[in-house]
């Protein structure tokens, strides 16, 4: 019975993933090897040219997406880790309240959030207009329609997905262990580096996985916040699929993206290199 436990635990999840993910993805994989067009139909030709063509045409957007996704992930880590740390160790009885407050804005439609950001960040709006009025910013300063806005938008939208898993990992660390470490090592920084950080790594790994991957594939932020040279791969996939009805190219691009992300995550797990993380995720 004990030996069966993991299989029984995993069974419902497996079934869900097998029926609703593996089967359709296998179909998509087959579409990515077909040629034709929407009107005359697509036929299986086992052609890998969809992949090479798509990569040739859209490598700029793919590289850019990885770059933006990476930048946003670093920003989320820098912003989110201290928050997770403070809530886990100092949040006291109100831990769950803080977490809830962090997530609450995301219970409201993204369309409303977007409209609000456009209002807040308008060139001459409530924020920048005021600063410009005081002469603190040059008159043509703007944030909307820039790379900064896209990366900022990605950071904003996925930040709770970084904070929560780090918190979850940190919270199980006994505060007394941290205090003991602080007594043991000369500085607080050393105590943090030697004790707290290693213990939080599974959370960091989970957080990065849950933010870097969706942020890189995101089609929304570039479309709403970007300028004329911020198109990401997610936007291209949408256009190829919904406007051009080029299902093979869209599928090929998606699989390429997924493969690149998989390699990236694997390498990252290796670099991070804790026994825990490797055991848990990179096998």
């Amino acid at each position, binding site marked *: 019975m004990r030996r069966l436990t993991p299989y029984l635990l995993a069974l419902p999840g497996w079934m869900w993933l097998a*029926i609703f993910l593996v*089967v*359709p993805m*296998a*179909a*998509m994989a*087959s*579409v990515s090897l*077909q*040629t*034709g*067009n*929407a*009107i*005359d*139909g*697509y*036929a*299986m*030709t086992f052609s890998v*040219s969809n992949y090479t063509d798509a990569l040739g045409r859209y490598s*700029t*957007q793919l590289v850019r997406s990885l770059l933006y996704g990476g930048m946003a992930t670093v920003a989320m880590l820098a912003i989110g880790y201290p928050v997770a740390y403070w809530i886990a160790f100092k949040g006291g009885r109100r831990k769950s309240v803080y977490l809830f407050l962090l997530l609450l804005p995301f219970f409201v439609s993204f369309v409303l959030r*977007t*409209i609000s950001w*456009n*209002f807040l960040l*308008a*060139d*001459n*709006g409530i924020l920048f207009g005021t600063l410009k009025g005081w002469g603190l910013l040059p008159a*043509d300063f*703007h944030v*909307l*329609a820039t790379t900064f806005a896209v990366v900022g938008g990605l950071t904003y939208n996925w930040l709770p997905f970084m904070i929560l898993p780090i918190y979850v990992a940190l919270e199980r660390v006994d505060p007394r262990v941290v205090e003991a470490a602080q007594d043991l090592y000369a500085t607080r920084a050393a105590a943090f580096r030697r004790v707290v950080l290693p213990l939080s790594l599974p959370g960091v790994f989970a957080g990065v996985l849950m933010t870097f991957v969706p942020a890189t594939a995101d089609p929304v932020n570039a*479309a*709403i916040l*970007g*300028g*004329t*040279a911020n*198109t990401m791969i997610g*936007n*291209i996939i*949408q*256009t190829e*699929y*919904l*406007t*051009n*009805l080029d*299902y093979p190219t869209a599928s090929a691009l998606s699989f390429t993206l997924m493969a690149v992300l998989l390699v990236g995550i694997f390498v990252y797990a290796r670099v991070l290199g804790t026994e825990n993380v490797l055991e848990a995720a990179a096998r």
Partner: protein
Amino acid sequence: MNPRPPLPRHGLPRREAFRLAGLSAAGLALAACGVQGQKAAPPKADEVQDFWSKQTKHGKVVFANWPEYMPEDKGPLEKFAKDTGISYEYKEVIQENADFFGKADPVLRAGQPLGYDVVVMTNGIQLQHMIELGYCVPLDHSKLPNFAANAGQKYKERAYDPGNKYTVPYSSGVTGIAYNTKYVKDDITSIQSLFDPKYKGRVGMMADAQEIGNFGMFALGIDPEKSTEADWKKAGEKLKEQRDNGLVRKYYDQSYIDAVAKGDIWLSMAWSGDVFQRQLAGEPVAFVVPEEGGTIWTDNMLIPKGAANPLDALMLMDYLYQPAVAAELDEFIQFVTPVPAVQDLLREKAKTAKGEDKKALEQMADSPLMFPTEADYARLRGYTPLDNKQQQVFNPIFQSVTQA
């Protein structure tokens, strides 16, 4: 990429076997043998007649439309139900043409019904796909007397659906230039203003390939309805130059209107309906149909293949062309109506109305944004009509401008 002929369909027994093997295997099998081609030969006239002669009134109709595209009390539909005895189901299920088509395509391709009798779609790429793939039921114009009598001439001559074979307009709008009068002191009349270096970084263009393509062509004096591949390339170059010179801030979806009203951009390609709303709200935006030309787009009603109640659908489509009904609809939607008689009806109504209502009705009836002038109409063109092959050339030209 040479289009290859579709593979022959599997024999029935084998397909049945897959079905028995379960839902997931069937899905896999379907995709693995390629997506079936659907190119439909245009239906013959007698077939159409034959189809319609067999239809009877079922007493119900399912109408799929965009949110906020029908008065909240559903007045026009209530009247329709009362006058004809046909009960209606009204569903606000359409958010975007592309998303709707993406969802409808696999269903219709599989020969399954969408569950709607009337669907509203814009005359863009997706509607052309619907027509080309044979997803629309050809209309019987002998049953559309109100349309014949009341639709404006411009709405009967449309390059994307000649002779209104498959569609009739629901509501319409104009793509022109909007500018913020706080920042732009000149009178904008020409499309060249969008290419004027003095507005560097303050110009908004649309991301949609057909919208921006039209404006690239207008700027070069080309009529998009009659344009060729060489014209598209020239327009693409012109637009690329505009982008590379730093004139364009962003390729917008509908959010351009916020940007222009707040002064993030000073002038932009714009849809008349959006600008009208901002003017009502007292924001400093003006609208002009450029002298070189502007675009007229139309949201159309159509009957999707496999609809359960085609005759009831046709009756509803025709009913909405009664001027009084069209007026009620347009008073709420505040776009351009395909029924010109609505303008006088709104003026009539304004005479007896009071206070705020009176003011609003007068503003509507007098606005060239809801009722374009004859001079405006003369300058308006539709999108470039494109079959699938042409789209494969046209789209990349303009997407390489907007999706760099």
